[in-house]
């Protein structure tokens, strides 16, 4: 499929920018917006295409999704050989996650869950003797979390969200009220009332909590001291998407853009201060004789189906790599002598291995309606048991079994194969499918230096860029987490009267053996850790300012900076970190100007 390089920039590229950013995903977009607002000139280099920015282009993605037989996370976004996302896996276990390389990045296909980490997540080593501590804690992040919740537009009610030590400034409210919880959630939370579960040595109260998400809901009139909040609609089409309408396809694409994607942030950056070059793949970070970054070499292609390209160099005062935890590590590893001091570059790759379970509720709960999830069980995200095994958070899915079994289509083919037809078929489907319950578990992983992203110079894409190689395993800590999560699942299903239908290997999942039992997991797409931040240059790639230790004009942004993954979907945390990085970069620029 050929794709011409789109609308040329109104003004030619500058010889020199204040900041050059690699990656037009959420991290790059947030940093670019904040820096451009301060009057800086920013260049963003994006490897992928720009299709989504026009309503017609975006609609073509939606139609790709409609026409796709396999409706996976990237069904709308055709694979681009010049900006590939396919991973070469070395093992021992499959790494199930993928991402998007295009304007908007992985937020094109994300679900939108926007959770804060719990305070204890920052202190795993001190508290539980496992993993590592962060060099700062929840309190230092709190203000940036609030800023992140504004810039992506999070819907939640604060009364629901103060658990496991998560706290908010007095009077804080989210920009929008929580997305209405589904009928399933309402029915379930009645039954859960009073449930207790023994995990490790302690017993925990179990409850269902509405989940904060970056999805347009009813604005909260109390936001910003009563000034309120105006939901941000579709990028380039702002009258649309100002309220979720229940398209139930958040993953992989929201047809109306009621879900946040980085496209919205990019659309709000004035072109006068930000140039975005798409189909421009950063290929190398080059250094001068003093170990400073002298430029970013990038390759521009016109046609996705051809490896023909031209080579250029972007120059700035400061550089930011925000290309995704895997791609950032890959780029740096493909660049000689960059960020090699600690030996941690590319290491400590973490994801949320995601086992799933499914069953039939005793009654019609209207499955397959609404956002992917509106509530979850957060009760076991923290506790003493973390000394022994992994914590988890549990998503309640509103979408029935589709993810694991190919429902509802598979239910129809199965029934028809058995000879069902006519009214009986219709009634059978009507009486069973609306009862479908599906849950998934996000299990934490500890940082393991053996889980890595590396590159093999022999293995290159059509542009000559080496592809990432993934070494991935799940350790005992997390495998025990699988076992305990499923014990919880059994107790939960019993409590709810759910007929457990979990059986066999769910579609596209990978097997892992834990304590002699076979489990199946997916990658949640929550890729973190590959260039972690820290207070010691010996064991981290970037310092507390998210600046590379060895190169004083290079910053890294995104989930790769995170030291642990804990149980929350990482995007909000990395958005907060990105805003923090932007402030650090601004301070740096000002200092340089004064000098």
């Amino acid at each position, binding site marked *: 499929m050929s794709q011409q390089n789109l609308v040329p920039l109104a003004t030619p590229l500058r010889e020199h920018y204040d900041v050059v950013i690699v990656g037009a995903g959420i991290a790059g977009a947030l940093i670019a917006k904040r820096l451009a607002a301060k009057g800086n000139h920013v260049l963003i280099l994006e490897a992928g295409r720009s299709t989504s920015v026009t309503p017609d282009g975006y609609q073509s993605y939606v139609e790709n999704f409609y026409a796709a037989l396999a409706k996976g996370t990237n069904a709308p976004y055709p694979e681009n050989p010049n900006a590939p996302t396919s991973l070469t896996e070395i093992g021992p276990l499959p790494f199930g996650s993928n991402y998007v390389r295009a304007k908007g990045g992985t937020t094109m296909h994300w679900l939108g869950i926007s959770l804060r980490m719990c305070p204890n997540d920052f202190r795993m080593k001190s508290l539980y003797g496992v993993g590592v501590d962060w060099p700062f804690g929840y309190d230092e992040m709190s203000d940036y979390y609030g800023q992140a919740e504004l810039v992506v537009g999070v819907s939640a009610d604060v009364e629901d969200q103060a658990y496991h030590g998560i706290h908010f400034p007095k009077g804080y409210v989210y920009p929008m009220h929580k997305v209405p919880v589904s009928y399933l959630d309402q029915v379930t939370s009645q039954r859960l009332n009073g449930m207790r579960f023994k995990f490790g040595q302690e017993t925990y*109260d179990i409850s269902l909590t509405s989940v904060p998400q970056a999805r347009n809901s009813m604005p909260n009139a109390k936001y910003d001291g009563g000034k309120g909040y105006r939901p941000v609609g579709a990028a380039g089409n702002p009258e649309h998407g100002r309220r979720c309408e*229940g398209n139930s396809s958040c993953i992989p694409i929201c047809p109306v853009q009621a879900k946040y994607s980085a496209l919205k942030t990019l659309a709000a950056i004035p072109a006068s201060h930000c140039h975005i070059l798409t189909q421009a793949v950063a290929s190398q970070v080059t250094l001068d004789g003093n170990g400073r970054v002298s430029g970013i070499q990038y390759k521009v292609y016109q046609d996705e189906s051809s490896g023909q390209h031209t080579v250029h160099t972007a120059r700035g005062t400061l550089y930011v790599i925000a290309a995704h935890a895997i791609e950032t590590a890959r780029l740096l590893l493909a660049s000689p002598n960059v960020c090699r001091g600690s030996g941690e570059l590319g290491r400590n790759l973490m994801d949320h291995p995601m086992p799933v379970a499914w069953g039939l509720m005793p009654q019609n709960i209207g499955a397959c309606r609404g956002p992917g999830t509106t509530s979850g069980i957060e009760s076991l995200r923290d506790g003493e048991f973390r000394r022994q095994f992994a914590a988890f958070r549990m998503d309640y899915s509103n979408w029935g079994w589709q993810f694991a079994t190919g429902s509802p289509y598979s239910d129809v083919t199965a029934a028809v194969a058995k000879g069902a037809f006519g009214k009986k078929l219709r009634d059978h489907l009507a009486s069973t499918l609306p009862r479908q319950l599906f849950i998934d578990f996000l299990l934490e992983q500890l940082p393991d230096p053996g889980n890595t992203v590396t590159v093999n110079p022999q293995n290159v894409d059509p542009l000559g860029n080496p592809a990432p190689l993934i070494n991935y395993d799940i350790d005992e800590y997390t495998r025990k987490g699988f076992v305990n999560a499923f014990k919880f699942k059994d107790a939960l299903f019993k409590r709810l009267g759910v007929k457990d239908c979990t059986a066999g290997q769910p579609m596209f999942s990978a097997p892992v053996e834990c304590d002699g039992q076979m489990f199946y997991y997916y990658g949640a797409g929550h890729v973190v850790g590959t260039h972690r931040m820290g207070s010691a240059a010996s064991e981290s790639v970037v310092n507390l300012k998210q600046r590379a230790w060895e190169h004083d004009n290079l910053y890294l942004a995104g989930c790769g900076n995170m030291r642990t993954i804990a149980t929350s979907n990482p995007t909000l945390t990395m958005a907060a970190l990105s805003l923090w990085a932007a402030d650090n970069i601004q301070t740096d620029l000002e200092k340089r100007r004064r000098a």
Partner: protein
Amino acid sequence: MPPIHPMEQFLNLSAVLTGFNKVELQEAGVGREYLNLLVEMAGDTLCFELWAETQAIYAKHPGHPARLEREVNQRILKNPKYAALARNIILVWYNAIWYQLPPDWTAPRGANALDQDQVVSAKAYPEALIWRAIGAHPPGAKPQGFAAWAMRPDGAEAPAPSARPKARGGKA
């Protein structure tokens, strides 16, 4: 023999096979597309014979849904000549997906390069009847509206008054 109108008989047969009445099928607006697809996959002759069979069944049992079902089951769904095609008719209406015909169908008739598992088209995708059957909607299309998912689904019983879900974590 009275003249056979393919679309009319296709809808007649589809109604019995799917359990959706003709008007419900027409509301999907994909009848012509599906009929064309069938002819492409199974050929004019066989399809025509199928419509003739359908017409004969309807002529014998006008207005008797149970008898129509029985006859269609016997003479079409269980008839090796038509069975695979009839099953595919059900599946294409419910799923908007054409499934590759089984080997015992293809072997005597020869393979058709077009006969691959496929979503019929982006236009047909939202009209898959399975979503209507279960009171839902096709993901990415025909949204039900803000807060629809919070409301009791059609056909479900009313919930007892519920306490607002509270967030309580930590040890009991």
